[in-house]
């Protein structure tokens, strides 16, 4: 009835060459899948780096198995060198945050889900969307290249604090630092282009009937995340450019000798940093809300408060960055204000956790693999959120800052949070992407093993963090106050190796089901989302005619549904009237 004037060229089905259809495709679903495979590769790279870190912390000074293949600038007689260790730590953080979790959450699921869930053909700007992927891949290649340049990659942590990162003579890193900065600028551009695409699509291209409060929480979360991305990434680009100029042009932004300020980098980085960590968790929260509602066969508990909680988190996220810098020599009164805002931001997260539990309360719980992972997310994210409160209370942050306690908090929120949600999301929308179902038993085994090994790996980190083990130290055994807890380091390393091995179960399940997975029925999870009105895998251009939306996304076990316990948004009941699109704005401008 109403169409967008410039639907993509697939309108008249001229046969597109292999290259146009799969490599340089402008179809949001193909771009989502491209992001998926590239991000999973970088997730593997990040994991390999983590294993070397765990080897060094668990067995300092002992030759690492397989260490021989590394050049002698990194490993001598199999023993990891300190400069390579700080490179491992820096690159593990950089790859996981920028090239694994962020693209997996935003690159894959914003691209794949938004047009499908709001009932439109494609993104507002398909070509820009394609550019966003290729820029992200380019950024990843530049960052990977920094391993193979003289002096290797950066050595100043993924946070890249200034005087160390700005002075090659102090850090010993030359080309690697420049590549990091360039890669971050390119990634920033890719992320900004992607985010402006998602924002325009959600605002303008919603199907008739898909009002703001009929949008599923996953689309709300991805929409708010896109806003965070559009406003946060450019600040990091600016900071990275200043750092690049400090290294290359001899500028003095962060060089205290010539009047620059070392704290300036920390302020810029964390002003971006905190919205960034909410970019890393909000999409996970959104997708988990959808999956838990589906698994519980029950409408999400408190839809409106969940939406305002997401908006609350996003807004507060801009005024809390100082809690990363309580110890940095910043004025203590600033510490007090940032403490208050940080403590307040715990409230929306609490609201979300209780609402997820409210959804499961008196539900009819189906324990498919996505639901298991979603429950894993809720239980683990709770620990992550609560351990954040220890650092929000400034006096308690004094002994805990920059120790393994912070590392535990990061991994409980990022691994226990985003990665569990990603396992759920990947399994949940796998049929929509590839038309086949991932194996259910294998998925369950993977979940149980991951849940166990994950906790065995990261919970003890709280303990050694309380004991005072500092972050990013190459060999904890040279400190007498750390010797008594070295057995915990060894234990964590073994658990981490087991956790890494378990992930191959998921990888095998993922790749094997591509070809041999069970053929997926039309609506395998019996869900209400708009995407399930399309065949699996969804065709190019999605719907022939823009569908209508008749109700909210969470009408599970609705009385009108009769015997079935779900009521899809696109299903027209006899009592439903076709939605009339909003009147056009006057004058057309």
């Amino acid at each position, binding site marked *: 009835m109403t169409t967008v004037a410039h639907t993509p060229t697939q309108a008249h089905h001229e046969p597109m060459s292999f290259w146009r259809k799969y490599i340089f495709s402008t179809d949001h679903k193909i771009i989502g899948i491209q992001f998926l495979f590239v991000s999973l590769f970088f997730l593997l790279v990040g994991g390999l780096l983590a294993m070397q870190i765990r080897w060094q912390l668990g067995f300092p000074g002992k030759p690492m198995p397989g260490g021989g293949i590394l050049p002698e600038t990194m490993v001598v007689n199999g023993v990891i060198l300190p400069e390579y260790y700080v490179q491992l730590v820096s690159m593990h953080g950089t790859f996981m945050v920028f090239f694994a979790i962020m693209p997996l959450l935003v690159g894959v699921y914003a691209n794949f889900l938004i047009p499908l869930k709001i009932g439109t053909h494609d993104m507002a700007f398909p070509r820009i969307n394609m550019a966003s992927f290729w820029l992200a891949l380019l950024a990843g290649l530049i960052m990977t290249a920094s391993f193979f340049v003289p002096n290797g990659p950066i050595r100043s942590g993924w946070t890249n604090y200034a005087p160390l990162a700005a002075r090659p003579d102090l850090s010993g890193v030359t080309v690697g630092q420049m590549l990091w900065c360039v890669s971050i600028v390119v990634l920033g551009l890719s992320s900004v282009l992607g985010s402006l695409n998602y924002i325009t699509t959600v605002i303008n291209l919603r199907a*008739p009937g898909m009002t703001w409060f009929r949008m599923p929480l996953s689309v709300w979360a991805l929409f708010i995340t896109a806003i965070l991305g559009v406003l946060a990434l450019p600040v990091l680009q600016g900071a990275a450019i200043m750092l690049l100029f400090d290294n290359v042009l001899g*500028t003095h932004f962060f060089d205290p000798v010539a009047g620059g300020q070392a704290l300036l980098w920390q302020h810029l980085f964390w002003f971006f940093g905190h919205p960034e960590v909410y970019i890393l968790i909000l999409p996970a929260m959104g997708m988990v809300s959808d999956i838990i509602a589906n698994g519980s066969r029950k409408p999400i508990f408190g839809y409106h408060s969940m939406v305002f909680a997401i908006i609350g988190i996003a807004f507060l996220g801009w005024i809390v960055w100082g809690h990363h810098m309580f110890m940095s020599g910043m004025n203590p009164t600033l510490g007090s204000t940032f403490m208050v805002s940080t403590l307040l931001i715990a409230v929306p997260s609490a609201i979300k956790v209780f609402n997820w539990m409210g959804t499961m309360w008196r539900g009819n719980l189906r324990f498919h693999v996505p639901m298991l992972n979603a429950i894993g997310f809720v239980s683990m994210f709770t620990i992550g959120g609560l351990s954040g409160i220890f650092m929000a209370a400034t006096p308690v942050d004094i002994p805990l800052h920059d120790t393994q306690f912070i590392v535990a908090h990061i991994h409980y929120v990022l691994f226990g949070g985003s990665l569990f949600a990603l396992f759920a999301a990947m399994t949940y929308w796998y049929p929509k992407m590839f038309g086949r179902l991932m194996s259910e038993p294998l998925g369950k085994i993977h979940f149980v093993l991951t849940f166990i090994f994950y906790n065995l790996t990261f919970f003890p980190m709280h303990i050694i963090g309380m004991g005072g083990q500092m972050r990013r130290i190459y060999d904890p055994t040279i400190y007498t106050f750390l010797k008594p807890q070295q057995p915990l380091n060894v234990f964590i390393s073994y658990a981490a190796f087991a956790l890494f091995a378990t992930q191959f179960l998921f990888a095998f399940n993922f790749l094997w089901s591509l070809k041999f997975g069970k053929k997926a029925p039309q609506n395998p999870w019996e869900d209400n989302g708009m995407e399930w009105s399309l065949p699996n895998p969804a065709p190019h251009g999605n719907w022939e005619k823009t569908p209508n939306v008749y109700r909210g996304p969470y009408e599970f076990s609705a009385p009108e549904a009769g015997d079935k316990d779900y009521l899809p948004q696109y299903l027209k009941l006899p009592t439903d009237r076709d939605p009339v699109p909003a009147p056009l704005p006057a004058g057309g401008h």
Partner: protein
Amino acid sequence: MQTPTVTDAMRPPYPAEPGAGVYSNKLGMWVFLASDVMFFTALIGSYIVLRFGAPGEWAKPGAVLNVPLTGLNTFLLICSSVSMVKAYAAIADGKKYFLRKVPGKMLQDGGLKFWLLVTIICGAGFVSVQLVEYIKLVGHGFTPSGYREGSLLAEHALADPLKYGAGVAGLYGSTFFTMTGFHGFHVTCGVISMLYLYFTKVLPEKYSPQDYRGIEVIGLYWHFVDLVWIILFTIVYLI
């Protein structure tokens, strides 16, 4: 796939309820400009923090930088904004594409082709003046890392450290070149995109009063870049 009926591209697609009421290209450009505002906030914010936290006295306005020439240059950029508005008005109000005689009016009422060309020329002029300014400054010894030893400026700074802000010349150079450099980069991108639009859309007269989105979007970008320059000119050159 249903054949797309050509509706007025300028209207936003029918959102389920009154959304922003802005067609997608313009909304996309507004969001991009928001991200660019954050980018310049990072640079200008750092400039302010560095300047107020600077240990020594900042260089006096006009000591190193050529304020009159840049003032003229700023005027040139403002004119290019005015000509951009004229170009937009020319196509939005259905005026002819090129110059047409208007009885009794001295300057014909120019169309899109004329005014967009004026904008491009002014923009390119601005960038080239800035480039010449850069070359002259570097020649005098003003580099991103401060005053080059043994250069003309270095001697001046020795002679009168207060006026030339000798103590914080490093910061002065760094902030000046980064901010104005990236602004210049944005202006260059604007000029290139206008040239691209000029040859692929304006000359073949693809725009019409029903659909002139490209002009409006590039106009938005141009006014943004002009606004940023006005801020930059004030805080870098004038104070």
